């Protein structure tokens, strides 16, 4: 099944719960192993949260599009928004060996995205932010 799921989210954090349900639905549809569904959920939540929290200069309601698809053993997850130019990958890598007192609270999320996904790419097509992530479905 190659069809793409395309879901609209509003730019409010309460939508994160619905994201979890959507990922679960997508995983069930494509018989994805639970660990993979978990990883996609975490990565998507991070991007969506960043867009909601930092993506807009106004206080208006915006639509954020999340697209999920499976193709040739690979899952593709995309987040598209019409906010200000913002690449969430611009964040610096956290030093995971630092002592507790030296650890900044931020930066963890993008680190997770990079480690959990096989490929992460940011583009800015026609005035939109597009964050694309890919992950191979484990064959075991």
């Amino acid at each position, binding site marked *: 099944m190659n069809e793409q799921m395309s879901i609209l989210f509003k730019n409010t*954090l*309460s*939508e*994160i*719960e619905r994201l*979890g349900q959507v990922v679960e639905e997508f995983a069930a549809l494509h018989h994805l192993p*639970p*660990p993979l569904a*978990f990883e996609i*959920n*975490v990565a998507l*939540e*991070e991007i969506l*949260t960043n867009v909601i929290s930092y993506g807009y200069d106004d206080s208006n309601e915006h639509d954020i599009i999340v697209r999920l698809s499976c193709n040739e053993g690979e899952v593709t997850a995309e987040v598209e928004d019409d906010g200000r130019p913002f690449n969430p990958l611009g964040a610096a890598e*956290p030093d*995971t*060996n630092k002592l*507790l*007192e030296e*650890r900044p*609270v*931020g930066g*963890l*999320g993008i*680190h*997770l995205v990079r*480690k*959990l996904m096989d490929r992460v790419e940011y583009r800015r097509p026609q005035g939109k932010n597009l964050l694309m992530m890919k992950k191979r479905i484990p064959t075991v």
Partner: protein
Amino acid sequence: MDITKDKRGDVTLLAIKGRLDASTANKLEEKLLTSIDGGERRLALDCSQLDYISSAGLRVLLLAVKRVTGVNGKIVLYALKDQIKEVFDIVGFSSLFPSFATQEEALRSCDQ
């Protein structure tokens, strides 16, 4: 996401049930920081029913461990599911939070 609180001697037990994500993390933050600011120094988090954690949840845990360490306290975790452990390992939290398989082991470590 539900949090239930209990006590074993001078150890505060907090069971985190369900999903710890950007929409539920504030609830845990309030509970943890209120406990610590209220004088609780030994906290053991029961993660046996913690199904999901994202960076929002991790951030709350990091805030809490910094706060409790500042008053010579301690937070330990127990009964983490594999997926949660994976996330912890990726962000290097396993070195910040002592983690145990059972409540018994967790409580014993709080005595030390």
